[in-house]
């Protein structure tokens, strides 16, 4: 697979990224990465009793970063934010057919999710 040859799932999520945008009001947010280094990921989660009711993401990054953040935002729904073990970068890489040299991008996505989880841990809503 060359650098611009993406899997169908990456193409679909790049073209129609589910949950892209920003949530306002009382939300838990998490971010990781830097635009200057090529990838920046931000998540917003609206919770009810610690469970994700609504989610949104923003990404500056390659198509793999966009697809991965979209997948995480979508799959976080109805899960507790204090458990992020379901987000396994290697399994997600296999699912999206992300090449090995791009695994770092998925780690940034994971870091953004865990940053939100850490904020939740410290919040009064817990």
């Amino acid at each position, binding site marked *: 697979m060359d650098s611009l040859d993406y899997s169908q799932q990456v193409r679909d999520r790049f073209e129609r990224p589910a949950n892209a945008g920003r949530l306002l009001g009382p939300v838990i947010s998490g971010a990781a990465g830097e635009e200057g280094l090529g990838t920046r990921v931000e998540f917003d989660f609206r919770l009810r009793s610690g469970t994700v009711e609504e989610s949104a993401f923003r990404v500056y990054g390659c198509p793999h970063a*966009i697809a991965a953040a979209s997948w995480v935002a979508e799959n976080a729904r109805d899960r507790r934010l204090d458990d992020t073990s379901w987000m396994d970068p290697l399994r997600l890489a296999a699912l999206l057919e992300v090449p090995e040299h791009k695994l770092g991008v998925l780690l940034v996505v994971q870091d953004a999710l865990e940053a939100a989880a850490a904020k939740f841990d410290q919040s009064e809503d817990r």
Partner: protein
Amino acid sequence: MICSKDIIYMDYAATTPVDDRVARLMCECMTREGVFANPASRSHQLGRDAQGRVEMARHEIASLLGASQTEIIWTSGATESDNLALKGVAHSLQDQGRHLITSKTEHKAVLDTARQLEREGFDVSFLIPADQGRVTAEQVAAELRDDTILVSIMHANNETGVVSDIASIGKLCRERGILFHVDAAQSAGKLPIDVEEMCVDLLSVSGHKIYGPKGIGALYVRSCPATRLEPLIHGGGHERGMRSGTLPTHQIVGMGEAFRLARHQMEPETHKLTGLRDRFWAGISKLGGVLLNGHRDARIPGILNVSIEGVEGESLLFALRELAVSSGSACTSASREASYVLRALGRSDQLAQSSIRFSIGRYTTEDEIDRAVAIVAEQVHRLRGLAPKTPVTSDREAG
């Protein structure tokens, strides 16, 4: 207009399609009814016919450059021409000196050859263009040494289209008795070139950049005073001993016709391309955060290199896949590294990564330009809308 998989071709700086008139002439030199014989076979009429076609083509190359027919050496392309010029001079004149000057924004064909010469013990000064991508005579003068044997500066840059003041650098080199090589792969047929007026001693050109075939190029080698070159390829003594190997008649005839057409069409084509380029720039610059790379005025009309703020380079290139464009030069874009040319011009890694080279040519239409502007606008808005820095305007921003 080029219709291929509904993609708008905007990569003329990488290569051009062969002009129909060129292709027809080439076909006459391939099959048994045509001029297929070896041009070196002067013992029979068929060989002499082929030699005649080769010499007619050589005349066309010389005419476009203001050179004499005997000063044109056929090669496999501009990369080989650059190699022959740099290594040929260095190996021939190494007893007189071992210092060369070039710039950091040259094509890899010059840069990698210069680095090879460094490995062989030569000393190379790499200039960083001072004037928005232009190398100046003053910069070259500051680096000249008693042991400098060659200066190599490109005419038009392949990534940015920026044109350096070749005539001033040539005059300086001539005054100091130092050979001057110019890579003119991007400028031949697009800008007037006169090797006499510009004081150029060696000049590389290619067929496929101006609607001729790939796999053929030429090196102009000044004959008076004679320029000594150590050949790279031995065997047969073709091309005055400087480049052996059977001449590919069909490719040479194609390149000759392409150069003839370019000479006759240069003025109207320049006018047309300048208008299309300005139309495209007017369209995409309205997006905001679109930065022109390189000198605003000293440039060839067919290339527009821009950095687009707020979008990541790989996503931008993929989002623009309805356009055949390059990220950096085609020769390096496979590596996905930030363009070394744009980095040398002072662009950050991030902006260099988010740069696109749009290059237009003979078959580009106004309709294609307008469609391309619409595609760029739509995709840049979309990608910027996904990015973290998007301002908040509603409860949920659409992605």
